[in-house]
């Protein structure tokens, strides 16, 4: 079955069964390995991408539901191949990346948060991250990064 969607601004069509998780389609059909999968339970958040302006756990999102949708993944975040986005730079500057396997999901969650709420308070940042597990960093660098970008924007 063919499914048409827009991923990082590019129109794509994939020929897969309807219940293929979007995460698998992104990774295996479209080569967008930036989206990670850590549980297939909707609980780790490594697979979070933005669909039509809202974050979803792409491991639990059947590709057929993304028909015609606008999907954004970590690969679409940087300003260019030279320049990272402010948030990407900030998580590196604040030590918010260690093993990095949670990072794509964290970046998508925070990107979406900052787009909908440009100046979140610390507790809002932490709440927004409650579905993104990071086993390495203790979250401190991640939260500081988000707040620094929010501060810059306000």
């Amino acid at each position, binding site marked *: 079955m063919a499914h048409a969607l827009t991923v990082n601004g590019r129109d794509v069509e994939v020929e897969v069964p309807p219940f293929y998780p979007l995460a698998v389609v992104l990774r295996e059909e479209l080569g967008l*390995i930036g989206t990670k999968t850590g*549980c297939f339970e909707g609980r780790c958040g*490594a697979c979070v991408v933005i669909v039509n302006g809202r974050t979803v756990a792409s491991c639990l999102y059947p590709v057929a539901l993304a028909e015609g949708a606008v999907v954004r993944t970590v690969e679409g975040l940087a300003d260019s191949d030279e320049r990272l986005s402010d948030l*990407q730079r900030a*998580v590196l500057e604040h030590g918010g*990346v260690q093993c990095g396997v949670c990072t794509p999901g964290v*970046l998508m969650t925070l990107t979406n948060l900052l787009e909908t709420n440009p100046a979140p308070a610390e507790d809002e940042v932490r709440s927004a991250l409650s*579905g993104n597990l990071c086993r390495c960093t203790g979250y*401190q660098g991640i939260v500081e990064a988000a707040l620094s970008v929010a501060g810059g924007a306000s």
Partner: protein
Amino acid sequence: MTVAIGDSSPRIDGEAKVRGTALYGIDYEEPHYLHGKILRSTVPAGRITKLDTSEAVKIPGVLAVVTAEDVPGRWGHVTVDQPVFATDVVRYEGEPIAAVAAETWNQARAALRAIVLEIEPLEVLGTMQEAMAEGARLLHPGWESYRNHFNTPREGNLAAIVDLRRGDIDAAFAKANHVIEDEFEVQRHHQASIEPRVCTARFENGRYVIHTSTQWPFNVRDGTAGYLGVRTSDVRIVVPTVGGGFGGKLIPTLEPAAALLARRSGRPVKLVNTRKEEFLSGCPRENAVVRVASAVTSDGEILGHRSEVLMDNGAYGGEQPVVAGLAPLMLCSNYRMGAISHTTKLVYTNTPPTGPFRGVLATYCNFALERHADHIANELGIDRREFRLRNIYVDGDESATGQRLEGVAFSDALERLDEVVPWPGLGARRHPYQGVGIACTVWNTNSMPSGASVKLNEDGTATLISSATEIGTGAVAQGLPQIVAAELGLDAGDVVVSRPDTDLAAYDGGAQGGRTMFMAGEAVLGAAREVRDQVLDAAALKLEADRGDLELADGVARVAGAPDRQVSLAAVARAELFRAGPVTGAGRHTHPPVSFDTGCVTGSVMTTFTGASYHVHLAEVEVDPETGEVTILRYAVAQDVGKILNPQAIRGQIYGGVIQGVGYALFEDLRLDEGICLDWGFASYRLPTALDVPPIDVVLLEAEDPVGPHGAKGVAEAPIIPVAAAIANAVSDAIGKPINSIPITPFTVLEALNA
């Protein structure tokens, strides 16, 4: 900008990680690879009465099915007790029984379903108590015939027995004013790296080439070769980006099966654990029971200390017999204890094998020791901090095994912590159900050896070739290149680091025990210094200057104070190429032996501290007496790191370690019921979220180590260790009742309050 020691130099893998282009084990694929899957036992104990794979092999797309018949050998880090696939007996739920490889994931799954497996259940020895009972069934009836690399004592269902005796314990207890006893119980704790274990194997030219997400490529090489019965050099391990380890990726797990499937099918094979398989197949930190008794005088001097640790090994030994040897060092530690009598028993059970997790048994030995210290202090009516100050190690004191300790930073740590969070003040502003706790620990830096080489490239940059493995800590992505850059006067961006590859680089003892900066760092420093030597010689020649007047900075060699007399490292490298050959250096390092009282301990191969570091943690908590919820109001860490090499990386390790400790202390719990794993997903196995993080103050101390590079010690492992103890002491203080088991869930707290 030239990088210096002490800078927060950035991660060299950072950009790829935030762009999503870093290639992890789960992302790594080889052309035309097959999907592998493992058939695992659904029962914890039984005899295989039928295993028929004949239908599975007929499924279209299935290219290989393997069972114990294909790989009869056993392997073990210490005791050679574990097969790749269960042979006739199944010893834990999740134990591999067969593996398949097929063109598609669905075909592989269909093949698994087509295997006919019948298991006749055996009595389940699901707990240590059951396995240790008089006349209990032997988990390994042939245990005596298993080879044991270190000849450590074993007996039936006891996979290892460690004993330590020093001084006259009976006299100490006879003389004491008080004998204070405690028993503690702790749960299993899973590493739960977000990237599961995964590998891709191929068979070429008679060798196995395996790309795997591991922390210790050489151990996986040796183990895989051991299982397969081939020479270690017949296995090549290459490590893609690793998505977290924490000890869970030290030993071979999927690699031997993948290797075998690749050989049988003639195609590359990829095996990935599901999250459920991650939980089922181990190797979590073991559940354990700790019993302690101290003989003390009325003014709080400890005359003698008796202790026993029971560690659940699960079905197979793994690294655990080595870990067990560390118990007396960690439990009979921190304080001058007088006479010591200690026994640790490592017990085989019908449960998934346990294994190393950051801090290994120190997390709970420290929990027991520091809860016990509070108990003694309270019992004697001595302030808990004061009790510690009276007894804690100072320079010249001896460890449990009689090692003389120098550079002990405990008193310093307690003092510095007090400047941040004054102890007397804590009592004064306490509300009901608020409490405070401290916990101290000494910790060891793993001293497995390392080698490395550095080459100066013809453009003046440097390449570090090492099998030290980056698992997220920054030790390889920040620290090692920082050492090279600082030595050669380069930018952080001017040092490239090779992937770990057992064909390419010298032996390395793995990303464990905080050793990468400590041991690999010293080897790298040696290699970089050789390069530096060659550069200085060549530059002196070229600049007609005295070698001693030269400095390396900003990518050039120059005469100090005469900036016009300089030559670029690129020019040096190119000139040297034809004068003497490429500029390249090698370094190697092993830790000098440490003397101790060799007669006092049996069953242990970890008898002394190397790169000992000192830590004090403080937790301030509030308990809701109606719901049992524990809120950590504030947390503080004073940590001796030897020498601050990269402050940002250190801070990240402390935050991350403390939060893992918070999970361990408050809710992470891998529960088993009659050998059946109850918590096999993130739905019930609770990892800390961003909401569970308390505010943390960090104080760094620098008690330089005589061996570590620039005086550095291991940093990353220890921050998890005292957390459970500090929190449990604080909660006990808050509710006025002892908390002697973890996790301290709201249920435990309410139970304690209502008891």
